């Protein structure tokens, strides 16, 4: 058994789950600190929901341990775990009014009537639906229903709030509005939240830390800036934020750092990963780190398209070798560069902004 991490509200170690031959979750370990907003980010089918279900007690792990507030909960059924859960499709009880839905967890806990009624009022006000208590769920819009689900999962102040793609069924502007509301509630109530999404921008905006899932495993866990600036794998670099990739050959190190041969040009990369000279690597550069010039050093490329974004310009490039890249430039820098579509340019970057992943 591993020792519990100090200050951890929830700790998973070596958790596995299989469905028949299909490995859904493979050796997941992580710790959630008190008051933290931790997000599971990953493509569909990567094991996020299954992991969340095991934390909730709705699925049993095949191996590993789950520790909540210092106690192993492996044998504890969901209704004794002191958690709240928000589902993607709201899961409101259709035969109960909004009030009765929100009062349900209080009733299950034997909260006295008057106290329960006060807490329900408070919860309704908290999610901005003070006058909707007597409605049935089907009489509300999707966004309102999810607010009610949020109120219901929070009204009894559970130790941990779980949310499985809670905004997945809503349209974009509503989603952004609710992202801010959930963040506000997290801040005001100092809740601990485990949040699931497959939307990387949602994860970046909302989270204190993000665990990137791929194929049932956690590829990397860290603050949004860590993931974005120092991705631990090619998968993370590609999944979190936008990235350009180019395959090349490792050249080794010199006084200024590591170098990689790309389309026959020696280009600088950070020395975070040490590849044996001669081995193939995949170099990743963020669009906003790409520099374009008409003269000097760099990988030759043709400017295919220039997209106007108002405050910025997006340059679509075809590099020697055929890879398509994009470069993002602020409006004034872009105008100063005076590059036109059809023109041949040189693509370059600072070594610290390029990562060469071994292949």
């Amino acid at each position, binding site marked *: 058994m591993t020792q519990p991490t100090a200050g951890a509200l929830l700790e998973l170690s070596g958790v596995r789950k299989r469905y028949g031959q299909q490995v859904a979750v493979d050796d997941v370990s992580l710790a959630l600190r008190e008051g933290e907003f931790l997000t599971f980010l990953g493509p569909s089918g990567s094991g996020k929901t299954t992991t969340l279900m095991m934390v*909730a*007690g*709705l699925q049993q792990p095949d191996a590993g341990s789950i520790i909540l507030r210092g106690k192993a909960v492996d044998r504890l*059924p*969901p*209704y004794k*775990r002191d*958690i*709240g*859960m928000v*589902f993607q*499709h709201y*899961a*409101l*009880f*259709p*035969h109960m009014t909004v009030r009765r839905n929100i009062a*349900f*967890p209080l009733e*299950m*806990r034997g909260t006295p009537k008057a106290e329960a009624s006060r807490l329900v009022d408070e919860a309704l006000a908290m999610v901005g639906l003070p006058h909707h208590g007597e409605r049935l769920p089907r009489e509300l819009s999707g966004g309102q229903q999810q607010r009610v689900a949020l109120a*219901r*999962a929070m009204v*009894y102040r559970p130790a941990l709030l*779980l949310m499985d793609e809670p905004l997945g069924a809503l349209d974009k502007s509503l989603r952004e509005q609710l992202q801010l509301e959930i963040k506000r509630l997290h801040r005001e109530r100092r809740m601990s939240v485990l949040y699931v999404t497959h939307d990387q921008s949602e994860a970046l905006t909302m989270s204190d830390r993000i665990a990137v899932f791929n194929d049932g495993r956690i590829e990397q866990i860290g603050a949004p800036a860590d993931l974005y600036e120092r991705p631990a794998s090619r998968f993370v670099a590609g999944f979190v934020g936008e990235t350009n990739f180019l395959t090349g050959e490792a050249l080794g190190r010199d006084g200024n750092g590591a170098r990689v041969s790309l389309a026959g040009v020696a280009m600088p990369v950070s020395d975070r990963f040490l590849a044996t000279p001669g081995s193939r690597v995949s170099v990743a550069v963020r669009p906003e780190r790409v520099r374009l010039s008409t003269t000097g050093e760099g990988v030759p490329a043709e400017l295919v398209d220039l997209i106007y974004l108002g405050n910025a310009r997006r340059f679509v490039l075809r590099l020697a070798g055929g890879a398509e890249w994009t470069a993002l430039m602020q409006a004034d820098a872009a105008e100063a560069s005076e590059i036109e579509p059809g023109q041949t340019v040189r693509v370059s970057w600072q070594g610290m902004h390029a990562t060469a992943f071994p292949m």
Partner: protein
Amino acid sequence: MRGRAPDPRFWLLLPALLVLLVTFVLPVGGLLARAFTQPEPGFQNFALLWERPVYLQVIWNTVMISAAATPVALILGFPVAHAMAHGSPRTRRLLIFLVLIPFWTSLLVRSFATVILLQRRGPLNTLLMNIGVIDTPLPLIYNLTGVLLGAVQTLLPFVIFPLYSSMKRIDPSLMQAALTLGAGPVRAFLRVYLPLSLPGLMTGATLVFISMLGYFVIPALLGGPQETMVAQMIQDQIAQLGSWGVAGAMSFVLLAITAGLLALLHKLVGLKAVAR
């Protein structure tokens, strides 16, 4: 005033409507009418039903036997419907197949098979005695037990399918939500699942009860004299006594009970919820 031409699709319904009219509405209407016309116009047939305790007794038996079969069928059918609604597609196909098998054999054949199974020295009693559960054969036939055992197996599809259609509309995450909100499995079931399967329960109960009211073969083969039901009595009146008037009056009472129940159900849950 000129009526609008009917929807052309109406003509497609016409053959079925005609068959119903000729083979159902007219003869049943005729039988019911005889309650008021034979042997002479008036209400004397109903007076007779009221005066002879045996008639009232049979009507009462019929209602009570049907009322006893209903909860048995619901309780047995509920878990089957649940497995059908929430199990894997394989489970669902298998169960639908099993539930439908009885429709492939004639009711008469099945009832005789049940007679053989349940009789004093039949396989069931022999088995129970051989494994030492009982010393003397259980009276499983020619009594209420026999009628209920025989009836319930034929009635199960009528509860299973309406329940299944209610249950498959219940989002499984509702039960998961109830569990995470602090409800144990029993309370989650009583507070969430059961109310949501109510339309199916009501439909199933009504279908079972109403079908059972008209049962003939099963009480005749599996019941004793105590379990004589209205349909048997109607048959006796016509085939043995030739009194079409009394038979008509009994049919009328049966129909009135059925209609009354449907009206009550409509008031309680709305036929719309049932027909959905």
